[in-house]
């Protein structure tokens, strides 16, 4: 029992657990739309394009969150704008934006000589989360979850039947842009926990696991949130006891949950058939 409880006696582990659960739940709930609307690639792109924003904020001694949020919002609006025009295919446009911005971030990093902080940006540093960062993460979680609750029927309709949405005057493009902005916010929170490289895993993996287990949207969101919160706690414990990178253990626990869900879902379908 002590193996489970003792680590959380340390205050840094309590902060990390709270941050991990908040970030995981936020990403997982929103991630259901990311998975169902096949936007996984955009999620990956968003987290990578935030890097130059982080680095510029760091170099200017500004709050890192402000740099990340500005870069994330600009990317979300940019992708929304690009996908409305048809000259370049959307995945190509995103591929260009995403690698270009990431390269710019790496270039900026190489102009300074302290790499420690940038390792944290790339791979996360949840054990060092400050109270200020915790507040930002909590505010982001509140914004994202309440937006999804208030606009549930609009998000759902525009996702499976954009044509009917348009006919009754609900702009599917506008809903998509709101979704992109919420994704940018969630990604900013997640970068603190698992870093730029692994953030899209939190958006995709818990939601994908939940989609193996249910055919109802609200249930899918709840299951995804539970899987993400569980993975954050277990990942932290493994990281604590074996002294390995916490971002990686959190993501790998999510993946393990996905594999189990996949097997369980497959077995249930076989029994039902």
């Amino acid at each position, binding site marked *: 029992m002590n193996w489970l409880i003792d680590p959380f006696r340390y205050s840094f582990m309590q902060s990390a657990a709270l941050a991990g659960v908040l970030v995981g739940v936020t990403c997982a709930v929103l991630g259901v739309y990311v998975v*169902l609307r096949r936007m996984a690639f955009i999620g990956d792109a968003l987290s990578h394009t935030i890097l130059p924003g982080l680095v510029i904020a760091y170099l200017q001694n500004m709050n890192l969150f402000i740099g990340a949020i500005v870069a994330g919002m600009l990317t979300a609006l940019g992708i929304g704008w690009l996908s409305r025009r*048809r000259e370049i295919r959307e995945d190509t446009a995103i591929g260009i934006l995403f690698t270009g911005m990431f390269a710019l971030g790496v270039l900026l990093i190489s102009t300074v000589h302290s790499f420690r902080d940038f390792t944290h940006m790339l791979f996360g540093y949840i054990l060092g989360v400050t109270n200020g960062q915790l507040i930002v993460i909590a505010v982001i979680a509140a914004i994202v979850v309440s937006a999804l609750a*208030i*606009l549930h*029927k*609009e998000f*759902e*309709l525009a*996702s*499976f*039947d*954009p*044509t*009917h949405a*348009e*006919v*009754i*005057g*609900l*702009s599917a493009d506008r809903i998509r842009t709101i979704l992109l902005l919420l994704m940018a916010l969630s990604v900013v929170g997640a970068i603190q926990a698992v870093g730029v490289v692994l953030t899209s895993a939190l958006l995709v993996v818990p939601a994908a696991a939940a*989609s193996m287990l*249910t*055919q*109802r*949207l609200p249930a*899918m969101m709840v299951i995804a949130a539970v899987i993400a919160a569980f993975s954050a706690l277990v990942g932290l414990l493994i990281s604590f006891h074996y002294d390995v990178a916490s971002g990686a253990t959190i993501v790998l626990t999510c993946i393990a949950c996905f594999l189990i869900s996949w097997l369980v879902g497959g077995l249930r379908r076989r029994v039902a058939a």
Partner: protein
Amino acid sequence: MLRYGGRSCISAIPNAPALEARCVSARYPGVDRLALDCVDLLVPAGQRVALVGPNGAGKSTFLKIAAGLLKIQSGTMSIYGSATAACDHRVAYLAQRGEIDWHFPVSVRKLVLTGRYAHLGWLRRPGRGDWDATDAALRRMRLDALAERQIGELSGGQQQRALLARALAQDADLLLLDEPLNAVDAETRAIVSETLRQLQEQGKTAIIATHDVDRLSHEYDQVVFLIDGKSVPWTEATKDSS
């Protein structure tokens, strides 16, 4: 209520036709050829109208303009005397089935309920009356036993009936149906035909794009042939196709 469109609908223009198109032309971006080339059409309220023609003739384009999904390049179109897309709750558009993500995790009942959203707008949640209208529409389309199924578990014909049920739940006055009888079973065919007849008795208007030319004359008040984006008189079109 906070309407989605934010546009104003003047609801009572007495004796306004359901649809009036005057030399409507439209073009898709990046395509030189006109998809519609100066089409005129007057549909008095309560009529049932067939749009007939080969693929690519402009039938779907015409319906999309009427539904407010596409902009007109030149000419004018009015729906019950207002601009297209102004009175969005009065117009129901049944797209071809391919435009919906049938794998999405929603039930048949939820799909039909979305017909009520035009009356709800932002923030308002569906109330008792909305669920009642949904269940009545499901029964009328004989889908009540399948109401809790995920939408992808329905057959093609059942999916088509679910879309018509949504239009009934919406209580629209003008129904725009794009190939509703394409590749559906005999039961669906019978239910759809009977429902369209009942709707007409209630004074509703329907414009239907169809390939089904055999029983046209007595099922429709008006038949419009479209070829290469132009409307063609009945006699000339039948001559061409024979």
